[in-house]
């Protein structure tokens, strides 16, 4: 099964967002995602939104709509039942 | 490999079958028993509980037979040789876990000191009515090894064979005693440890990256991996693939179940142990097992004193059944007499195996005591008169 690993600065509205401000970044393995919404809901700084696209199983997966806000707390990674997302602090 | 002398009570003893079975297990390297008391098997574990702190091992009294039959499997995966002990009602409870032991290929021994059944039955009196259950008791298709001692000495000797076979074939072995053999006291000679050959567990020498939990070697038997050495193996009772992962489809089922069956079938010659006497020119053969074979001895002697040529074929291995042996025999004799302490269980196998070549005379006895030799003699005489040859 193909696993698509997206770069962490996935953005919604086109145009790059300055990443130098972000304290952390989010990583994805979207083909594992089942669209439960835990990460989107429980991210304390609301980095994530559901994508318009579907993954291979037909689920909407999370995208980092506001990656510059990410603090690398990994709440998303701790909540994810599917090991499809995790955050890390920038060094 | 030779037995560990710590567990071998060398010497000449006066023991009953239950006690001798315990000594056999200790000599074979059994260091873990989980059990639940049930007459007439309890003495096996009582002796073990008494001996084991000195020998070095552990006895755990569990809350029921269901717990006992799976606790021993946990111990086996952790590296021990393990056994549990029960009688009819407990044997019924253990059936699911006998199935697990077969499916996950766990080497261990289950003793059933048979008593009168069904249900609570006759706790203190003998029977041999669980013989079919030993073969077919758990659900699904599988093969099993069942051994049947007929004396306390044999309870010791055959127990070592039971452990050896379980390790060799990675399968649970049913040790089918009966209350009479279990509670009869006779001389038991236990040799020194260096005279006892035991089969140690065969752990894989492959590296964790190459190893697959259920990849059979050339003799259809997969190698076990040691716990905690980086193999990260997964064991499941679900139908599984060679990695040990659940693989629930027709192909995997066929592959796995046929291998489990062939693993035993292929080695029938090694597994089937029969004690013969006077078979060569026999007109009638008495085929028996367990305590009934002792009574049959008298009947055979009586028949021979009357001038009849009577042979003895005592089944030490009841399962897998000696199909080919019986078929061969059926072509040479007039009749095969099968006395047993049940309503006729192994006799069905004999009837099936002879394929009509000779007469098969069942001598049933519903348990609670043993046959009178005259009953078996009568059957022998009947067999000698009739028959097809």
């Amino acid at each position, binding site marked *: 099964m193909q696993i698509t690993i997206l770069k962490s600065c996935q953005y919604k509205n086109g145009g790059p967002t300055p990443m130098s401000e972000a304290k952390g970044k989010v990583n994805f393995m979207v083909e594992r995602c089942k669209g439960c919404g*835990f990460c989107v809901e429980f991210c304390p700084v609301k980095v994530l939104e559901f994508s318009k696209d579907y993954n291979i199983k037909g689920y909407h997966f999370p995208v980092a709509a506001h990656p510059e806000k990410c603090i690398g707390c990994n709440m998303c990674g701790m909540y994810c039942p*599917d090991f499809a997302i995790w955050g890390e602090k920038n060094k | 490999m030779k037995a560990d002398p710590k567990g071998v009570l060398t010497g000449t003893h006066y023991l009953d079958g239950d006690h001798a079975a315990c000594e056999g297990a200790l000599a074979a390297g059994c260091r873990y028993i989980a059990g639940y008391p049930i007459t007439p098997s309890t003495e096996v574990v009582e002796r073990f509980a008494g001996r084991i702190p000195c020998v070095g091992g552990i006895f755990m009294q569990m809350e029921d037979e269901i717990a006992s039959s799976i606790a021993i499997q946990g111990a086996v995966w*952790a590296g021990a040789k393990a056994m549990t002990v029960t009688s009819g009602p407990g044997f019924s409870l253990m059936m699911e876990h006998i199935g697990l032991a077969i499916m996950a290929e766990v080497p261990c021994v289950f003793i059933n000191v048979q008593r009168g059944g069904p249900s609570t039955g006759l706790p203190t009196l003998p029977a041999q009515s669980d013989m079919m259950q030993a073969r077919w008791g758990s659900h699904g298709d599988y093969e099993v090894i069942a051994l049947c001692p007929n004396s306390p000495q044999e309870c010791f000797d055959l127990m070592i064979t039971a452990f050896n076979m379980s390790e060799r074939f990675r399968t649970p072995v049913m040790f089918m005693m009966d209350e009479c053999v279990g509670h009869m006291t006779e001389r038991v000679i236990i040799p020194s440890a260096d005279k006892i050959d035991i089969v140690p567990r065969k752990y894989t020498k492959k590296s964790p990256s190459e190893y697959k939990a259920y990849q059979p070697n050339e003799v259809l038997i997969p190698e076990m991996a040691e716990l905690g050495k980086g193999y990260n193996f997964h*064991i499941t009772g679900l139908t599984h693939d060679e990695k040990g*992962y659940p693989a629930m489809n027709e192909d995997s089922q066929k592959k796995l179940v046929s291998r489990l069956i062939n693993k035993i079938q292929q080695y029938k010659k090694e597994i089937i142990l029969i004690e013969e006497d006077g078979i060569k020119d026999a007109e009638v053969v008495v085929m028996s097992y367990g305590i009934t074979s002792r009574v049959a001895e008298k009947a055979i002697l009586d028949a021979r004193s009357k001038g009849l040529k009577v042979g003895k074929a005592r089944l030490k291995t009841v399962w897998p059944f000696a199909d080919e042996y019986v078929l061969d025999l059926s072509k040479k004799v007039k009749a095969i007499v099968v006395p047993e302490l049940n309503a006729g269980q192994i006799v069905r196998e004999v009837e099936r195996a002879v394929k009509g070549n000779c007469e098969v005379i069942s001598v049933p006895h519903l348990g609670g005591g043993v046959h009178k030799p005259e009953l078996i003699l009568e059957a022998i005489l009947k067999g000698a008169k009739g028959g097809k040859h």
Partner: protein
Amino acid sequence: MENTKHPLSKYLREDRMPHMWCPGCGIGTAMNAFMHALDKSGMEKNNVAVVSGIGCTGRVAGYLNVDSFHTTHGRAIPFSEGLKAASPDTKVIVFSGDGDLISIGGNHFIHAGRKNMDLTVICVNNLNYAMTGGQVSATTPVRSITATAPHGSFTTPFNLPFLAEASGAVYVARWTVYHVRDLQKAMLEALNKKGFSFVEVISPCPTLYERRNKMGDGLTRMKFYKDNSILKNGADTKETNIEINKPFVVGKFIDIEGKPTYLESMNKYYDETFQCELGYKTYKGTRYSCNISDGGVSEGCMDD
């Protein structure tokens, strides 16, 4: 394309991902918390064994990349008792569901607690028998609609922290899969605790329990846990009942020291009382009693 690996992938059987749990099911989150706890504990992966029973939570063993066992229904605990007794140095974790551990496995649960077997028991409680389609289990709250109680269940469920305490557990905690940090901490404490340690994890079962009882999906239920869990560390376990659609207590309830485990009691007792010519050598397991394969005498299980 970056080649990033999940930070806990060493504990995950990645060749078996994605797993079979439903969207919004909390078992994955519970397993995730466990992996975090295991990582934080610093325990050698080789010294850990995970045993599950049958059921949705029972599948956890199949996804964790350690020596793992998927045993029969209700019997993960006695299997673990044998495993632990033969290899006392292995950390044995039982990870299974409410139906498996408490309904069919109830008897084994209380006996293991009584003996204070050194096991870490993690029970994911989704209030029903999920794998088989959502039937009533020993923890289903009264008035729940389930597959075998289509008009509503009327039998009182077990109160798991109370049951665990009564059985003799030395560590009892309950969290939900919403409380990921507390859950990790509780699992870590339970791992490090000697004796029978019990962590109950309340989880949604969106496909069955939540759907039949019109409680929304996994996320809705997570928000319910957030708003309706009453944090009460040290609460009396008599108060930790769960009633349908009502607030419930979470926290760490029991954490006692000084109670000897089964093997400690055995060794201490025999040390004091056992007489034989060889003397009693402290039991350290039977792992190596059959591990010598090329001649020679086995080491048995005496200490060196």
